[in-house]
C-alpha cells in the first residue's frame, strides 16, 4: 500500500509518511504539554498555525471539531484566575483575580487548543485504516491492530442498530426523559439486546475469518516508505520539540 495519493492537490502535511507523522505529532504534543513559561507560547502558537496551514483543513471544519471539547476547558479558564495565588491583580466584587491564576488559565487553554489542533491536522484527514496500519508499522501489537480495525467496522453497525432500536422505542411511546426504574430497565435491555445482536454477528464474522486463514501466519507487510524529505522533516520537528521543551 502506497500512502501517497496520485492527485496533485494532497496537502503538504499529508504527503508525509504516516508513521513519521505520528511520531512527530507525539513529540510536539508532549513538548507543548511541558511548556510552563508564557514566553514559549508565541513559538507554540506559530508552530500550530504553520501545521494547520500546511494541513489544508478549512477553519470552519476545525472550529466544528473544537466546539464540543472547548466546553470543559473554557469553564476551567474562567474559574482558575479566581482559584488562588499570591499576586492579586484586581478584584471583581468579593472575588480576586491573581496573576498566577491568570497565567495558569492562559497556559492550560493554549496548550489544550494547540495539542488538539495538531491532532486534528495530523490525523483528522487521514483514513482511519491508514492510521491503524501506521501504528502497526510502529510496533502496535497485532491483536490491538485487529481490535482497532474491527472496531471501526462495528462503530458503523452499532450506530445504525442503536438508531433503529431507539426509533422503534419512540414509535412505541418511550421517551426516556425522566430518571425512573422504567428508564433504567429499558436502557439496560436496549444495551443488552444491542450487544447480543452484535456479538452473534461478531461470532459469525470471526468463524468466517478463521475459515479464510485468519490467525495463521504473519500479518501482511504494510507498504509505507519514508523518503529523505520525510526523515528530514521528522528531524526538524525533533529539534523544534527539544527547543520548546528547553525554552518552556
Amino acid at each position, binding site marked *: 500500500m502506497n500512502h501517497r495519493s496520485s492527485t496533485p492537490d494532497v496537502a503538504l502535511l499529508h504527503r508525509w509518511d504516516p508513521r513519521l507523522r505520528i511520531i512527530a505529532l507525539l513529540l510536539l504534543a508532549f513538548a507543548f504539554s511541558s511548556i510552563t513559561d508564557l514566553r514559549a507560547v508565541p513559538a507554540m502558537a506559530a508552530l500550530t498555525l504553520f501545521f494547520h496551514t500546511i494541513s489544508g483543513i478549512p477553519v470552519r471544519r476545525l472550529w466544528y471539531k473544537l466546539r464540543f471539547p472547548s466546553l470543559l476547558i473554557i469553564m476551567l479558564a474562567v474559574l482558575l484566575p479566581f482559584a488562588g495565588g499570591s499576586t492579586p491583580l484586581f478584584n471583581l466584587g468579593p472575588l480576586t483575580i491573581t496573576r498566577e491564576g491568570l497565567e495558569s488559565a492562559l497556559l492550560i487553554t493554549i496548550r489544550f487548543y494547540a495539542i488538539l489542533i495538531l491532532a486534528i491536522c495530523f490525523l483528522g484527514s487521514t483514513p482511519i485504516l491508514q492510521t491503524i496500519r501506521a501504528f502497526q508499522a510502529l510496533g502496535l501489537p497485532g491483536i490491538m491492530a485487529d481490535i482497532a480495525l474491527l472496531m471501526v467496522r462495528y462503530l458503523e453497525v452499532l450506530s445504525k442498530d442503536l438508531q433503529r432500536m431507539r426509533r422503534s422505542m419512540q414509535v412505541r411511546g418511550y421517551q426516556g426523559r425522566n430518571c425512573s426504574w422504567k428508564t433504567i430497565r429499558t436502557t*439496560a*435491555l436496549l444495551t443488552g439486546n444491542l450487544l447480543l445482536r452484535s456479538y452473534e454477528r461478531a461470532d459469525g464474522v470471526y468463524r468466517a475469518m478463521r475459515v479464510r486463514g485468519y490467525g495463521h501466519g504473519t500479518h501482511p507487510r504494510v507498504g509505507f516508505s519514508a523518503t529523505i524529505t520525510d526523515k528530514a522533516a521528522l528531524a526538524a520537528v525533533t529539534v523544534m520539540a527539544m527547543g520548546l521543551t528547553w525554552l518552556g
Partner: protein
Amino acid sequence: MHIPDGILPLPVTVGGYALAMSVTWACLRRINQREDPREDIPKAALLTAAFFLAALIHIPVPPASVHLILNGLLGILLGPFAFPAIVIGLFFQAVMFGHGGLTTLGVNAIILGIPALAAAALFRILTRGYSSTPGKVSACAFLASVVAVSCSVLIFAACLLIGMPAHINASVERSALTILVFSHIPLIFLEGLIIGLVAGFLFRVRPQVLEGL
C-alpha cells in the same frame, strides 16, 4: 472522567504512558497464553465500539444528564482484553471527538482500565464455586461495576490533585474535588444497576458471553 490535554504536567503524562504500556503488555501476555488468543478479538472489538459510543447514551439525572462509562461491563465481558480495548477506545475518542487527550491517553487508560481489570477479577471471584442464577449474576455484576466506577472516580480525582497548578488555594481545591467525587455517586449506582441488569439478561440468553463464568 477523561482528562484533556494541557492540564497535567509532563512527568505525570509520561508516567501514565509508561504504566499503561506495562499493563497492556501484561494483559497481552495473558491473552497470548490462551489456546486461541484471537478468539475473543471480535467480542473485544464490538465492546470497544460500545465503549466508544457509550458517551452518546445519556441518562437523565436531574438537573443534568450523565453518560455511561461501561468500564465495569468491559471487564466482566472481556477479562484481560478490557485494558487494550479501553486504550483503543480512548485513542479514537481523543482523535475523533477531542474527548480525552493524546498526551493524557496513558493516564486516562489507567483511570478507566485498571478498575475494569479489578471488576473482571471481582466478578470472577464472586461467581466462582456456586451455581449461578440470573439474580446472583446481576448482583455480582452490580457490585463489580460499582467498584469499577468508584475506583475510576477516585483515581481521576487523585490525578487532578497531582496535576492541578500549585497556586490553587488548598481549601478551594479540596472543595472542588469533594464536589466532583460526590457528584458522581448517582452515576456509580445508576451504572451499577444498568450493568447488573445487562449481565442478568446476557446470562439468561447467552451465558458464554460472560467471561467470568
